[in-house]
């Protein structure tokens, strides 16, 4: 995936401001930022749900604002803000999406995914009657149906209890490792980012203000946790002056 000079403006409001990055295969990357930092808009542009004002997103070589459907079967997506139809059973929902993604061995694949994500006992229950944790696992089942090479996740563990959240994170890590898949997820959960991500792209006011491994960022800012780094960034504090060469000036920060 390559994102070049991506910008999205809604009238006078710039949600995403000239960001560029690329994702190497088999990496797990976190888009980190506070509310309104531009994470969801960025993911929406990567998915082709929102057309950029300028710049471009290329996924597997396809321009996502023009040619999304050419590569849509190679990626998938999960978000707590999007649901599967509540009245359909889990099996019915997965069957419909297996058809949409062009999966030939539907029953076999659903059985495998259900076993893998421990949702076998949920398959014949109405999706709307599941708990938040169960819904997340079912949403993940839909997202993994086509074994995507690129998986985009918007707050994958939002509103889950710590135990379930931890289970989901381990499952995602296992999937990425086993498949050599690339994961890009948006989150404001610092512990999650530290545990899951190989690389963090920190957004503030629509701009990339940091890009590095969690360990590097913590070291660069002279902090103990990523959460402390995040607080410094969103509150507009500059990092320790001696810890970075002078010629690498920090991007402009929002006033605290």
């Amino acid at each position: 995936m390559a994102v070049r000079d991506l910008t999205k403006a809604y009238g006078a409001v710039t949600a995403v401001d000239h960001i560029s990055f690329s994702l190497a295969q088999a990496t797990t990357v976190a888009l980190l930022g506070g509310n309104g930092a531009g994470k969801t808009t960025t993911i929406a542009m990567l998915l082709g749900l929102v057309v950029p004002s300028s710049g471009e997103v290329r996924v597997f070589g396809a321009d996502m604002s023009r040619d999304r459907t050419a590569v849509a079967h190679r990626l998938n997506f999960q978000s707590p803000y999007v649901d599967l139809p509540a009245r359909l059973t889990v099996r019915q929902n997965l069957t419909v999406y297996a058809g949409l993604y062009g999966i030939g061995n539907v029953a076999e694949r659903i059985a495998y995914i259900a076993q893998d994500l421990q949702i076998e006992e949920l398959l014949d229950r109405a999706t709307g009657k599941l708990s938040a944790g169960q819904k997340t696992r079912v949403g993940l089942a839909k997202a993994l149906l086509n074994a995507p090479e690129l998986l985009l996740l918007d707050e994958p563990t939002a509103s889950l209890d710590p135990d379930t959240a931890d289970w989901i994170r381990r499952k995602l890590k296992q999937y990425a490792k086993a498949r050599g898949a690339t994961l890009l997820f948006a989150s404001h959960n610092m512990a999650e980012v530290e545990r899951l991500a190989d690389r963090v792209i920190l957004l503030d006011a629509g701009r990339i203000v940091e890009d590095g491994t969690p360990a590097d960022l913590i070291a660069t800012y002279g902090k103990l946790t990523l959460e402390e780094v995040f607080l410094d960034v969103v509150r507009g504090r500059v990092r320790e002056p001696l810890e970075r060469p002078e010629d690498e000036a920090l991007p402009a920060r929002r006033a605290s």
Partner: protein
Amino acid sequence: MSAVTATKGGAEPILLPQTGVGASLRRIFALVKRYIYLLRSSGVRLVELIYWPFLQMLTWGFLQKYLAGTASPLAQAAGVLIGSVLLWDILFRSKIGFSTTFIEEMWSRNLGNLLTSPLRPYELVAALSVWSVIRLGVSMVPVAIAAYFIFGFNLLDLGLPLVAFFAVLVLTSWSLGLISAGVILRYGLGAEELAWSLAFLLLPLCCVYYPVSVLPDWLQWVALALPPTHVFEGMRSILLHNTFDVKELWWAAGLNVVYLVAGYLTFSWFLGSARENGTLVQLGE
């Protein structure tokens, strides 16, 4: 949660070809299947599909029976009332079937999943169209049968033109459905009322219960520019005079092509506009 375990010997997904007619048909069928599942999940929905057209048919059927029993000059004309109601319901129910099924995707916050899947916009439209016809069948066939047994009105008496009437009305309903869906996509569920009311705009104009000649001259041109007007004129001609002018049907078919193209372009334009304005993301939240 129990421990995360790697399942051995897992089934790899066998990905079928993603392009071509076969792939398109497969995706359309997958979505139609979703709507069938939805209808099967609720007996209330099934009953509701038949309930309103059945009530309509009863009301107008009894009125027709009353008028037919009087010496009123309206008695003869009254014979076409049930026919008018049933044909109007084909247009109305098909339009509602198209629009509400689309709105259902927004209510269930599923549109984000659909629009990030390999489904093409024209396949979504095709699935909604196919489903509107299936829904129409579920809704209208029992009502047409009931009209025969209760009032002795046999819709099949319209003969072969009935098939053409049906096609014209369904095609018009898809044009209206596309416009409603596009507006709702762009402006959100706040514009939902349009889905219900757009067809009613046609009710006085396409002369469901009276001939075109009743309208003022200038309004007759507007009426004749609407495909359903030719259907209702044709139905009256068959039932009252036992004649049928095929030219009426050709007019309706030609107009439908124009309306369908305009409907699809409108839908595509609103979809593009929703992607520009970010409303597709807001729909999910």
